[in-house]
């Protein structure tokens, strides 16, 4: 469903889109900051899946749940601190952004 390549660590993504559920509301292409979705032929299409940064905006705003993504922070510091503390979900610390 999504182009996979071993070339870059950032070309794989957890973004999944089920076109059969889509109503063509256009919300996903509105909220995505990387132009991952476009609207074509009345439904959403994945235009640049490898640009996805897993922010979760599209999935959260898709009323019919056609999109799923393992959303979270793309911050190495937060992830390393989380694994040191043994917490599952990395979030930014208070001193951060």
């Amino acid at each position, binding site marked *: 469903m999504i182009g996979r390549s071993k*070339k*870059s*660590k*950032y070309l*794989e*993504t*957890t973004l999944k889109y089920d076109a059969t559920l889509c109503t063509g509301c256009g*919300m996903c*292409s*509105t*909220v*995505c*900051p*990387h*132009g991952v979705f476009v609207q074509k032929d009345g439904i959403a299409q994945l235009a640049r899946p490898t*640009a*996805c*940064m*897993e*922010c*979760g*905006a599209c999935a*959260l*705003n898709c*009323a019919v749940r056609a999109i799923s993504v*393992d*959303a*979270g*922070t*793309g*911050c*190495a*510091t*937060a*992830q*390393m601190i989380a694994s040191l503390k043994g917490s599952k979900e*990395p*979030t*930014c610390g208070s001193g*951060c*952004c």
Partner: protein
Amino acid sequence: MITPTTSSITLIDRMQHILARAGLRRSRFRIRPGLYALGDPNSNSQVFVTANYGLSFDTLRSALSNIDCYILVLDTKGINVWCAAGKGTFGTEELIRRIGEVKLKDHVTHDILILPQLGASGVAAHEIERRTGFKVEYGPVRANDILQYLQNHAATPNMRRVTFNFMDRLILIPVELTHVFLPTIILMALLYFLSGPIPALTVPLVVIAGLLVFPLLIPWIPTPNFSTKGFLLGSMVAVPLFLLALISFPPAIWWKKLGVALPYLLIVPSLVAFITLNYTGATPFTSKSGVKREIFAFFPIMFWMFLAGVFIGTLFRFIR
């Protein structure tokens, strides 16, 4: 209660912006959550939603010059819109709570809320409509596009994209540098007395490479991820240091010379790579799964290179 505000940015505001950009006193740069009236709004006026980080609020109100409107400020604990949306404080629940608390329905007759697009990762628009009756409209990513957006409530594809251009990266440098300034000085002094001038010189070079040169050169360092970019950049700093150590170490016994100089080749690239790996948090395009893979692939290399460097360095400090 509605607090009046204006779109003009005062000198004091500007001072606070500079401090905030430099990473100083950011925690105090908060504004009170609630409903603000910009100019002289009436019941038909637009409602804009933002975070209670001072810089977010000021950017919005200054972009709305000559517009009479309401600004609804959410309690994001003084964090900007995007980061707060990621944490969920700029989120569905807080927005619904705030709409009720300021009794928004008593102030406007329409049902439109304009949110910054980058707030979308915390807010489910359809949930807001279902539970409050207000329709969420996502405005452009950048506040300076708002006036153009308001002409027909549509954003061009460019207005919907985040950028990370040279200026965006330049503006992040002061924050990073202020964070490490004191540790850098302390470490320099410590290394100077423990091992001499060249090790001490390494500290600011690593910091400059990782936090100043790297951010500016990201697109031009020809490897695909942050760690390898860091290794490459670090090696460019390490080689001159390695040669310098070779030349300045007096005894002619080659393996002793090598033992004193080799740690630079191990420690410097691994430290710079560690810094650049951590830079992922400051960029708007790295994903959670991508960063996770990068940590798994490269952190062990950094760790063992660093450890080997420290070990060899300490060893030769005693046998030379």
